């Protein structure tokens, strides 16, 4: 690893100082993200309170299989990226690249399942809460709000996924240029935090969308 990457920007006292600051910055950013999604979760709690039956009717129309597979995929992706981070801490760049590549592909798989298949299915079943919405009658109102939550939640989460994939791709490129070593791998840490956070959001969205409203 060239010594150059151990230098630090002029406002910091050391490279370690800079690295820890970058990691703290990402954590704080994630705190803002918690509140961003928090507003969506409050919308869920609030609207479900007034429309429990409608929410459940909506939830029963979602595709549990794809949702569950996607959860497994995302958890695996987050796990493998964290493993990559563990490898680079030990200086193994080759393994880092492999792990990131798998994590990246899993992420792509998630997006394909979610937007390529599940969303298309939802649209063809008229589950988008537009003028030809499938669920009518007394439960229609609640089901509509449920699907607003579903589409907005998955769309915003999907955008975060795309952002995360760009970042993971950037890590792969930099790792291929051999820019990381056991002494310098801050960007891997920072991206790892973000990637795991996207995972966390999904962990909460998954039961809110697929499980809570699904009784026997």
């Amino acid at each position, binding site marked *: 690893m060239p010594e150059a990457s151990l230098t630090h920007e002029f*406002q910091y006292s050391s490279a370690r100082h800079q690295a820890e600051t970058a990691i703290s910055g990402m954590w704080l950013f994630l705190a*803002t993200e918690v509140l961003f999604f928090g*507003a969506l979760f409050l919308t869920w709690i*609030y*609207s479900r309170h007034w429309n429990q039956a409608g929410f459940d009717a909506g939830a029963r129309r979602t595709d549990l299989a794809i949702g569950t597979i996607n959860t497994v995929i995302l958890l695996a992706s987050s796990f493998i990226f964290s493993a990559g981070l563990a490898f680079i801490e030990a200086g193994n760049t080759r393994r880092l690249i492999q792990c990131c590549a798998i994590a990246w592909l899993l992420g792509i798989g998630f997006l394909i399942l979610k937007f390529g298949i599940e969303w298309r299915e939802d649209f063809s079943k008229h589950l988008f809460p537009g003028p030809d919405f499938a669920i009518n009658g007394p439960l229609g*109102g609640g089901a*509509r709000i449920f699907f607003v939550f579903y589409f907005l939640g998955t769309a915003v989460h999907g955008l975060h996924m795309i952002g995360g994939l760009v970042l993971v791709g950037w890590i792969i490129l930099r790792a291929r240029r051999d820019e990381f070593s056991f002494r310098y791998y801050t960007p891997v840490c920072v991206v790892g935090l973000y990637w795991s956070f996207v995972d966390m959001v999904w962990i909460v969205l998954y039961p809110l969308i697929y499980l809570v409203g699904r009784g026997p």
Partner: protein
Amino acid sequence: MSEVVIETPGAAASYLANGVTLRSWLLTTDHKRIAVLYFGTITFFFFIGGGAAALLRYNLILPQGMIGSAETYNRLFTLHGVVMVWFFLVPAVPVTLGNFLVPLMLGARDLAFPKLNLLSWYLFVAAGFVVLYALFAGGVDTGWTFYTPLTSAYTNGHVVATAVAIIVAGFSSIATGLNFIVTIHRLRAPGMTWYRMPVFLWSLYATSVILVLATPVLAMTLLLLAFERIFHIGVFDPSLGGDPLLFQHLFWFYSHPAVYIMILPGFGVISEIVPAFSSKRLFGYKFVVWASMAIAVISFLVWGHHMFVAGTSLYSALVFSILSFMVAVPSAIKVFNWIGTMHKGFIRFDAPMLYAIGFIGLFTTGGLTGLFVAALAADVHLTQTYFVVAHFHYVMVGGMVSAYFAGLHFWWPKITGRMYPEMWGRAGAVIIFIGFNLTFFPQFILGYLGMPRRYHSYPPEFEVLNVLSSAGATILAMGYLLPLGYLTWSLFYGERASANPWNATGLEWQTASPPLTDNFVSTPTVTEPPYNYPPPEVVHRHA
């Protein structure tokens, strides 16, 4: 306060002299230059919003309205609200004085993330263009509060574009807040312990906490609103199963803390100026500090007081009312501490101090009238009338804008390297104080008599007080144009400022005026508590 060795800086070492090309400004990551960029932007928006306010007051001179159409009037007050809230009040002190001073006061070279800082300015400018487009291409007539279902289903204004602009401006605020928090945690100079930090930094820290944690909720709320408006689906629309009160809850979860985003930096500015011009330590430093932090937390727990007559549950009204009284306590503590600081001081009456004293008076009035609208039964009568308008203008304009001007005059020599003309500065402070009271005091009475907000025309019995208010507004407008004139003049002809013209403590006064590009010749080491003003007997009037 510290052992900084100040060598006489050559002109080339000043941050202002470090390149004069447009590129050197637009691509700079120097926090001081970004602050200057922000000064320009903020001033622009202040006068846009102020112009709208002038038209509003002009309209209200006659009961039937001077401006022909109610539509125009509604768009004007929405423009005034949106621009003033998101493009002036929320960012004003943090992005200008804050950006400039946070690293200097900490003894740091720059903020933790300089590129992010520049990005925040570009986001802000982009948001500014979008909002100007939206507001001038047809405008929005829903008020800055965007209540649904008026906004989501009934109005035909540019709601979505305005919402997008506010979301982008919000990201700009988040970037600034994040930068400040991390910087204050990580980049304090050696010896700069938490309790040696000036209160200005503490209050910016508290402000940033709110910026970072409240703004994302607004972003999601406006996203839901835009979604609802575009696709005609109702999270907030009762005819589609939603509840409009959910919008109000989400909106005020941001917008109530947001008023503390506006006023907390003002507290910080005043806490610097009062000790400096009293040549005395800040009274009860730790109480002032923890009052700020308490406000940062409690301000999130009171939003429901905007909804006492909106149809929320009785329990929620009771809970939010008592919490609203609680949040007034830390503000009261601060006022008492500023007065305590003046006690037995050596008080000088330079323009910053006059603005600061004006702030204390106006803010106290604004704060006390807040008690009226926190008390449930009184709020029922007073809410949504001009009483509320007067109340928040006392806090936001009388308080916050006075504090902004106080800080601007106080640090003007540091920022520009020039003194402003003192007599003009004092005159400005007095004119603004008088003009402000003439404009807004009559509105308290109007509100008590029942004149509703956002009325393009009004019953004739309210005419006298409205004329009085509009007359006061002309004086206030002159008061605001005056500093624009003499401060601009001083940029070219002002007397050159010394490094520390006020004999103030604080690391920012220990470097040159204007500061060096790298802020300090060598990293300062702090060994003393803040506001360690020398005992009165050795104080000398500044030359």
